[in-house]
């Protein structure tokens, strides 16, 4: 019996169309648009001006405060302007727009492909390097990595869990990294272990990636304290709390953090970025993005510079199919629909999915028949039918008691609902309102 989390979960069609497609390096575009806020926390502050010449890897925006991340130039060239642009979330924000000239990297960056396995840095140096290189969680949440690696006083961490689950349908970028950059990923894991001061790490991978499991299991023999944990395929196993439960049996308390049960979770992509930052002194300026969709001509996994327009990725995948009705940034379960494709790739862009028009509209909403399928699907043990109605009716105090803030917005409830009710839409509304109310209570 494969391990998994015990409560709830669904199994949507996997549609991993690009699992067999090796990572392709996308050519550097003629212009990049680099938003200053690609992470959770305060936006970075630009330190370049119009006309400033930049090299690849040079810092162009400085983190503002502790919860923030540095932004580096993903290309070499000249700053065209600093302007307000629409990003992948649909909101406007400041971005540094750079005209590309050649591809001249900072000399301090080691661009060789050779594997650097020995970790020379100390704990503090590793964390400092991650902060300097602007590392953030690559699974989608984009939380600054240096904060997660700093265990606060009074908390204990005895174990690192690496998220190689990639439970979202369609996406394969982590899968390809585990196959093609396995040793680098494992070195990154060792570095994170050192930073946290733990001697064991578990990499959770779902059983639908047997090649990644066997590749890493084989490679892990050369690394101390790293084990590979195959997991039963079940969405949302990539949820931090579900993954910890599946791998260790520990249950993060409501409103708590993984550290409350002595665990830190990092993503496979982040591990790779940590390797590159610490061993090669390379800041986070590129990432692997899955570009896919059922009618896409040439779906694939692309290594792209941050700031590359999504349109360039779509071109690389054979152009946007004529039947496209929706383009999603991220996975089909939790990703965000793009209003336009002329937006830049950011540190959190894991995939671009093009859905045909007939699959891009929601079905007709029927009355709730109280089948309870949403409650069975909820991995947090919530009652989506109830909290969505409470939110809809503005009964926020009740919704809070029903633990609406535990919802991680995985969408399993809305997916499973036979009446196609927009459960998560109302739960999101309720959750945001309850969080705001709770903040107001504290400030009073």
């Amino acid at each position, binding site marked *: 019996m494969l391990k998994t989390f015990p409560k709830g979960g669904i199994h949507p069609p996997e549609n991993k169309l690009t699992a067999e497609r090796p990572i392709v390096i996308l050519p550097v575009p003629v212009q990049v648009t680099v938003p200053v806020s690609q992470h959770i926390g305060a936006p970075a502050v630009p330190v370049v001006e119009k006309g400033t010449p930049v090299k690849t890897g040079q810092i162009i925006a400085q983190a503002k405060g502790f919860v923030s991340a540095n932004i580096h130039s993903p290309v070499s060239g000249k700053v065209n302007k600093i302007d307000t642009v629409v990003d992948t979330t649909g909101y406007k924000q400041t971005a540094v727009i750079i005209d590309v000239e050649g591809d001249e990297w900072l000399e301090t960056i080691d661009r060789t492909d050779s594997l650097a396995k020995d970790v020379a840095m100390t704990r503090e140096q590793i964390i400092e390097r991650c902060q300097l290189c602007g590392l953030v969680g690559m699974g989608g949440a984009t939380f600054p990595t240096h904060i997660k690696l700093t265990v606060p006083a009074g908390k204990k961490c005895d174990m690192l869990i690496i998220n190689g689950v990639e439970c979202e349908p369609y996406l394969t970028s982590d899968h390809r990294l585990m196959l093609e950059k396995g040793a680098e990923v494992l070195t990154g894991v060792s570095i994170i272990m050192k930073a946290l001061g733990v001697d064991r790490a578990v990499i959770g991978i779902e059983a639908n990636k047997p090649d990644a499991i066997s590749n890493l299991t084989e490679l892990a023999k050369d690394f101390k304290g790293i084990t590979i944990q195959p997991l039963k395929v079940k969405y949302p196993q990539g949820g931090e709390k579900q993954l910890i439960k599946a791998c260790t049996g520990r249950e993060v308390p409501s409103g708590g953090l993984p550290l409350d049960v002595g665990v830190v979770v990092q993503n496979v992509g982040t591990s790779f970025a940590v390797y590159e930052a610490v061993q090669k002194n390379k800041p986070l300026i590129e990432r692997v993005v899955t570009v896919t969709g059922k009618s896409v001509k040439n779906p694939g996994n692309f290594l792209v510079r941050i700031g590359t327009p999504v349109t360039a990725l779509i071109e690389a995948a054979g152009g946007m199919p004529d039947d496209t009705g929706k383009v999603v940034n991220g996975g089909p*379960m939790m990703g965000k*629909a793009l209003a336009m494709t002329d937006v830049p790739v950011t540190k959190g862009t894991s995939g671009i999915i093009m859905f045909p*028009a007939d699959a891009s509209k929601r079905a007709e909403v029927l009355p709730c028949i109280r089948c309870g399928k949403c409650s069975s699907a909820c991995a*947090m*043990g*919530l009652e989506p039918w109830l909290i969505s109605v409470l939110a809809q009716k503005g009964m926020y105090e009740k919704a809070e008691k029903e633990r609406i803030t535990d919802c991680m917005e995985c969408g399993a409830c809305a997916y499973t609902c036979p009446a196609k009710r927009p459960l998560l839409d109302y739960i999101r509304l309720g959750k945001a309102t309850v969080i705001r109310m709770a903040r107001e209570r504290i400030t009073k």
Partner: protein
Amino acid sequence: MNNLLNVSPSPHQQGAETTRKLMFGVVIALAPALAASVYFFGTGAIIVTLVSVLACVATEYLIQKFILKMKPSVSDGSAVVTGLLLAFNVPSNLPVYIIIIGAIVSIGVAKMTFGGLGNNPFNPALVGRVFLLISFPVQMTSWPVPTGFKTGYLDAVTGATPLGIMSEGIKNGETVAALMEKVPSHMQLFYGYMGGSMGEIAALALILGGLYMIYRKIITWHIPVTILLTVAIFTGILWVVDPTKYADPGFHLLTGGIMLGAIFMATDYVTSPMTAKGMVIYGIGIGVITVLIRTWGAYPEGVSFAILIMNAFVPLLNMYIKPKRFGKEVKHG
């Protein structure tokens, strides 16, 4: 690009299950029992079923179209299921006008007055059935004798149900052993060779339908299994205490409406609890009340009343029985 992109919050894909598919899944699950009824009761079963389904669908359509002035939603299949279940709960020789009255009460009173699909507190088909039982006690308790397929309808030869024979006999002081001679054997009961409501007789066919619904994930095992287990244990205890006064659990499980009730009536989504724990409590309640009515009540059968009584507790069960949440709750500043 000439087309605008659709933008909506996640999730961007929805599962294949729909209300209509679930409802027609129930219809498929009812098919074996319907076939058994036609086999045992002949054309009467067909007439009753058709009239009931048509009357239920028509009632819903007319109310939605002309009274509520909304887009009729009969295509969701819920009225078809109610119609089938109402038919299954009445004798196969029931006159057409009585069936239509039952359908109007089921859909018009028990379902639409509460706001239609999803909002009715009581199982519509059972409300219709109990209304008919009280209003037309003679017609509702003249049970055709199973004869193998025949073309009669209202002129069917009638007789008592096994439960009726048992209940009446025990009141008159006969022993269970003697009464067992007067009713069909357990094997015959299992196949459905007995008098009774049209769709309740064939335990085998009903169980097949139930297994299909569990396989299709339309229902879970919780409600039917707890009801049947509760009935078996309760009647089993009585039987062990005094086998001359109380029939054995096998007899209780195979007669009357317990199979139909446990598998199809009590599992109605709208009127049953939404958590597994709630379902188990609800199932135990139905089982206990059924045996109480059968053993000490005025009616020989009590499944319908038991389910309706427990329907009333469903909102309470939903309010107080919560799923186990993930993670302890901790107090925050």
